[in-house]
C-alpha cells in the first residue's frame, strides 16, 4: 500500500466514523467563525451565545435518544411532550409560584402529565409500526392545534398570562413577571471578558445527559436498545418490545416536557399556541448532525449535534447580516440545513420493499 493510499483510507475512516454530515456542518461552522473574526464580530460573544443556545435546546434534543434507540425513530411528536411542559408551566404560574419554586413545581407537575401522554403516544406508535415517523409528525401537529383550543378556553385568571380582553392565555408569556427568566442561566454564571458561561443551564443539561447515559447502561436501557436494533433478536430473547417502546417514548415525552421548561426560562418567554409546531424538526436535525441515524443514537450525538447546529445558526446570523444586508439568511439556512439533514437521514433508512 502506498502512502497516498494509506492517507486516503485513513481519511475515509475518519469520515465514516464521524459521519459526513457532522463533518460538513462542523467545517461550515468553523468557516463562519473565521469569517466572523474577520468581520470584527466578537468570537467570545459568538461562543457564549452558542453555549447558551445549546444548553437551552439540549434537553429537547436529548429527548430524541430514547425514541431512536427503541426503534420508533426520531420523536417527530416532540410537541406532545412540549405542550405537557407548557401546560405545567402555566399551571404553576396560575397557582402563584414564582422563581425557583415555580421552576420546581413546573417540572414536578410536568412529569406525571408527560408520563400519561407518553404512555398513550407509545400505545399509538405500537399500532402503526413501520410508519412511526409520518404518524408521529401529524400527532405532533394535531396536538399543537388541539392545545390552541385549550389555551384559548382554559379558565386561568392570572393577569400575567391572560389577554387584556377576553378569555384565554397570551401567545407569549413573559417569565420576567414570575421572576423566572434566565433562572438557571444565572446560577453560578461567570464572565471572562465578553465570554459568558451560563453555568447553571449547562449543568442541568449535562445532568440530564448523565442520567440518560446511565439509563443506556441499565437493564431496561439495554433491552430498549436491543429491541430497536433488532426486534427479532429481542423477541427471541424474551423481551417485551412493545412495552419497551412505550417506556422509551414516555422517557422521550418527559424529557421534552422538562426540556421546554428549561428552554422557556432561558428564552425568558413561554410560547404557546403554534409556537411548538415545528420544534421537533430542529431537535431531530440537531441529533442527526451529531452523528445519529434514524435508528441509532447516543448521548454524545446529542452534545456534539446541539453545539454544532446551534453554533452554526448563532454564528451565521451576525455574519450573514454583515454580508447580506437586510436578509435573514440565518432563517433560510436553518430551513435548508435542518430539513436537508433530515432528508439525508431518511435516505439512509432501510426498509420498504421494492
Amino acid at each position: 500500500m502506498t502512502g497516498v493510499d494509506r492517507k486516503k483510507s485513513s481519511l475515509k475512516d475518519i469520515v465514516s466514523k464521524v459521519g459526513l454530515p457532522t463533518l460538513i456542518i462542523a467545517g461550515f461552522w468553523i468557516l463562519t467563525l473565521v469569517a466572523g473574526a474577520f468581520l470584527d464580530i466578537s468570537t467570545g460573544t459568538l461562543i457564549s451565545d452558542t453555549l447558551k443556545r445549546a444548553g437551552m435546546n439540549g434537553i429537547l434534543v436529548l429527548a430524541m435518544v430514547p425514541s431512536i434507540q427503541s426503534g420508533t425513530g426520531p420523536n417527530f411528536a416532540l410537541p406532545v411532550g412540549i405542550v405537557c411542559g407548557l401546560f405545567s408551566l402555566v399551571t404553576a404560574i396560575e397557582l402563584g409560584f414564582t422563581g425557583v419554586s415555580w421552576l420546581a413545581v413546573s417540572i414536578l407537575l410536568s412529569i406525571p402529565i408527560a408520563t400519561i401522554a407518553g404512555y398513550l403516544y407509545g400505545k399509538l406508535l405500537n399500532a402503526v409500526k413501520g410508519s412511526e415517523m409520518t404518524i408521529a409528525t401529524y400527532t405532533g401537529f394535531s396536538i399543537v392545534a388541539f392545545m390552541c383550543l385549550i389555551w384559548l378556553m382554559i379558565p386561568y385568571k392570572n393577569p400575567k398570562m391572560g389577554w387584556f380582553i377576553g378569555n384565554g392565555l397570551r401567545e407569549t408569556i413573559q417569565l420576567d413577571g414570575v421572576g423566572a427568566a434566565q433562572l438557571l442561566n444565572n446560577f453560578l454564571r461567570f464572565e471572562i471578558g465578553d465570554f459568558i458561561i451560563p453555568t447553571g443551564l449547562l449543568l442541568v443539561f449535562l445532568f440530564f445527559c448523565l442520567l440518560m447515559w446511565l439509563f443506556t447502561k441499565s437493564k431496561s436501557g439495554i433491552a430498549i436498545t436491543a429491541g430497536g436494533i433488532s426486534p427479532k433478536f429481542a423477541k427471541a430473547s424474551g423481551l417485551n418490545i412493545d412495552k419497551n417502546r412505550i417506556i422509551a417514548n414516555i422517557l422521550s415525552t418527559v424529557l421534552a416536557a422538562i426540556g421546554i421548561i428549561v428552554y422557556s426560562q432561558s428564552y425568558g418567554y413561554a410560547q404557546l399556541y403554534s409556537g411548538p409546531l415545528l420544534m421537533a424538526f430542529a431537535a431531530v436535525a440537531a441529533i442527526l448532525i451529531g452523528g445519529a441515524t434514524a435508528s441509532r443514537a447516543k448521548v454524545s450525538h446529542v452534545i456534539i449535534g446541539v453545539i454544532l447546529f446551534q453554533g452554526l445558526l448563532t454564528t451565521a446570523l451576525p455574519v450573514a447580516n454583515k454580508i447580506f444586508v437586510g436578509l435573514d439568511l440565518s432563517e433560510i439556512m436553518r430551513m435548508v440545513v435542518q430539513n436537508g439533514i433530515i432528508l439525508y437521514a431518511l435516505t439512509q433508512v432501510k426498509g420498504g420493499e421494492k
Partner: protein
Amino acid sequence: MSDNLLNIKNVSKEYYGNKVLKNINIEVKKGEIHALIGENGAGKSTLMNILFGMSVIHTTGGYEGTIEIDGKEVNIKTPHEAMLHGIGMVHQEFMLIPGFTITENIKINREITNTNIISRIFGKRYENLDFKKMDKDARKALDTLDMGIEEYSTVAGLPVGHMQFIEIAREIDKTGIKILVFDEPTAVLAEAEAQNLMKAIRKLAKSGIGIIFISHRLDEIIDVADKVTILRDGEHVVTKDIKDTSAVEIAQLMVGRKVSIDRSEATARKKSDEIILSIKDLRVAMPGENVKGISLEVKKGEILGIGGLAGQGKLGIANGIMGVYPSKGEVIFNGNKLTLNNPMLSIKSGLGFVSEDRKGIGLLLDESIELNIAFTAMQINNGFLTNYGPFKLKNSKEIRKHALEMIKELDIRCTSPTQATGRLSGGNQQKVCVARALTQNPTLLFVSEPTRGIDIGAKKLVLDELLKLNEKYGMTIIMTSSELAELRSICDKIAIICEGKVEGVLSPLAPDADFGLMMSGSRKRDVVRSDS
C-alpha cells in the same frame, strides 16, 4: 441434429471459488417432462438462475459451458431475454397481484395496446389498453388449462390452486413458449388440486412444450415425468428414464453418501429413559416453514436430530416452542406444561435456542461479543447486574470475566471481548450464539442449522462442541439441520419432517434410501422398512 429443445452442456458455476455446479448435462425434448430432483444446495436453483439469466449469475462472473435452445447456442443475460427465447417459469411463490383481475395478472407488462393520438406523439407507453383482446387471450389460456373461472374476477380470495393455474396461464400466454419450468408447483396444493395440475402438465407437454419439473415428491415424479435428473452437491449424478428406475433408487441417489459417517460415539453419555420434552400436535405459523401438527418425545440426555428438506417445517419446531413465531399445541417440558407464544417463559423454564438465523435473530451484529453473550441471561435471569435501589445497571466487570471464560472454553477467535460480533467469521459467530445460550444454563438446547455458512473445518468443531456439552453437562440437545450427514454423525435418532408433519423417526445408521424416501414424503408407498 437432434430434436432437443434445450441442451445444457457441461455447465459449471463458481461462486467466489466455490464450485456449486460441476459439468451438468441435461437435454429436454419437445413434449418431454423432465424431472429435476436434489436436496437443498444440490444446485437446482443455481441451474435455473443460469437458465433465466438472473443477475446474480452475471455479477459473479457468469458460468462455464453452453446452453442451446433449438440447437442454437444462446447466452441469456436477463430474465427478459429468457422470456424472448421462450423459457417460462411457474414460481413457487406466486407472482400475482391480488388486487388485479386474472386478465391483468396474466398480461402484466405484456398488455395489448392500441395507438391513439397522444401515443403517436409521446410514445408507446401512452397507448390505450385493449381489454377486449386481453380478456380474449386470457380466456384462451385459461381454456387450455380447463379453467372455468371468469377472467375478469380479481385474484384476491381465489383458492391457491387457482392461483397456481393463473401463473401457468400467464406463462403459456406468452407467445412462443417452448420450455416451462415448474418449481415445486404442488408444495402449496391440496391433493385434488395437485392431481389437476398433473393433468394440466401432461396436456401442456402433449402440445409440444418441454417441461422441467422440480419437485421433491417422488410419487409425483414417477407419476408424471418421462425422465429424471438427479443432482447432488452440484454434481450431475445421473439422468434416467422413469421406466428404468424406482422411487427407492431415486431416493437413494438423491441422498447418497457424501462422506463416510464417522460417528464419534462418546463414552460418558448419560442417556436416561425419562422423557424431558413431550410435544403434542404442535402447529407453528412460520412463513415458509409451517408446522402442521407435530408430536415428538425427547428423552433426557438425548441428542435428537430433526431433518427434512427446506420449507417442510423442520425449522418451525424450535422457533414455535421458543415463541418466535405463533404456535399452538401442547408442550410438556420437565413435567410442566409450557406456556406457548411467550419467549420469556420458554427461556425461563430452561430452554435454550441457537437460531438458524444467526445474523437476524441470533446476534446483535453491531454490539460487542461480551454483551451478546451476557444479554439473555441479564434480561431474563437478572444476571450481571448491580442494583442501585430500584435501578439495575449492568455489571461490566462480571460480564467481561464471564465473556473471557467463554471465549477460552469455546475457543472463539477474536481480537477482544469488545469486538463487534458482525466482524467475526461464521464459525465464531455461531460459537458466540452457543455461548449466549449456555450462559442461560439451559437444560435443553435447540440448535438450528449449526453449521450453515461455516467452512468445513469449523463445522466439525461446532459439532464436537455440541457433543461435548451433551457429554459433560448431560444437556439434552435438539439439533435441526438440512445436512443429513451431520445429523447422522452425532444424533441418537433423527426425525424427518415432511410437509409440516413427522414423516418418521430413523436411526442414524438407517440406509440412504429410507432417508431419501422419507424426505420426499413417500412413506405412504410402504417402501420404507420399519425402524428398529
